[in-house]
């Protein structure tokens, strides 16, 4: 009888060990998938941003500091322990329209990207349904669209592609009138500052 009890206890111990092993395996799989997702995001979403321009050109272009080709985003992190604590993916799309306000929208998105507030991505990739850019946008946690004028082309592009939930900044709403807003460092800084408030810190 005693040996029977002994055997039962041993069986319970064995089952407990099996459960523990199972949960550890499942946990490591989840962690691995998270790591892969982060790695995918780092490559797909920001592949473009890695080499963002070193300097602006042209007399009318304000001198906005941009990262050099080797600047790595914070998403690339440092060490394995950094995986869990990396910042959420925040993508920025600018209309980059032809008018003064379009250029300000474009430069402010580059400025926000350079300062690490979020990552500028290519709106044309959404309009063109380009797979890696669509997937990166779908995987992002927050999207900010910056529109120069009330036509709201960036917002419409995202909506046409099926994106419903995103932050939106229209330059007209902060007093910048199309055709009457010279491209200056101040104007770009103002839009970047407004954009920053729309993205989670």
């Amino acid at each position, binding site marked *: 009888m005693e040996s029977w009890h002994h055997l039962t206890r041993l069986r319970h111990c064995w089952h407990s060990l099996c459960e523990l092993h199972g949960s550890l395996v499942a946990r490591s799989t989840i962690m691995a998938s998270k790591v892969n997702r982060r790695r995918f995001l780092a490559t797909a979403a920001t*592949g*473009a*941003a*890695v*080499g*963002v*321009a*070193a*300097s*602006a*050109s*042209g007399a009318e*272009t304000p001198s906005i500091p*941009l990262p*050099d*080709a080797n600047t790595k985003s914070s998403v690339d992190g440092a060490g394995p322990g950094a995986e869990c604590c990396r910042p959420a993916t925040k993508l920025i799309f*600018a*209309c*980059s*329209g*032809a*008018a003064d306000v*379009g*250029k300000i929208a*474009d430069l402010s*998105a*580059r400025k926000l*990207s350079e300062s690490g507030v979020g*990552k*500028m*991505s*290519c*709106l*044309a*990739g*959404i*309009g*063109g*349904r*380009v797979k*890696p*850019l669509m997937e990166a946008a779908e995987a992002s946690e927050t999207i900010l669209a910056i529109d120069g004028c009330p*036509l*709201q*082309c*960036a*917002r*419409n*592009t995202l*909506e*046409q*592609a099926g994106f419903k939930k995103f932050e939106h900044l229209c330059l007209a709403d902060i007093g910048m009138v199309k055709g009457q807003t010279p491209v200056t460092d101040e104007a770009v800084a103002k839009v970047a500052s407004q954009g920053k408030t729309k993205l989670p810190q």
Partner: protein
Amino acid sequence: MAETEKKPAASCECGTAPKLIFSCSGAADVGHISDLAARKLTREGAGKMFCLAGIGGRVSGIVETTKAASKVLAIDGCPLDCARKSLEEGGFEEFEHVRLSDLGMEKGKSPVSDELVDKVAAAGSERLVC
């Protein structure tokens, strides 16, 4: 004589409809160069930069103006060809296309400079001549 032959593209007699330029204006260095080249071509009168996002967003005024254009030029920074695909998604089939990687500019390795912008603008200008 040579001057008459090389008159600016904008003054050709191909009608009053504008020549429109769409740049991908992507996030990378080559995207920025394509954006600046489109603006430069506009300043020089070779054509008129237009809002590619208006095509992607199906903004009627922009789509209609593009349909009426005498010529359309798409400038893409990288081989993903987002500007070309955006126009094609918008139903445009016939347009000129300049890809910066075809001009030897590699994504992430082409710092924005006047020289590169000029090079792209020159290639674009050639495509806009009637």
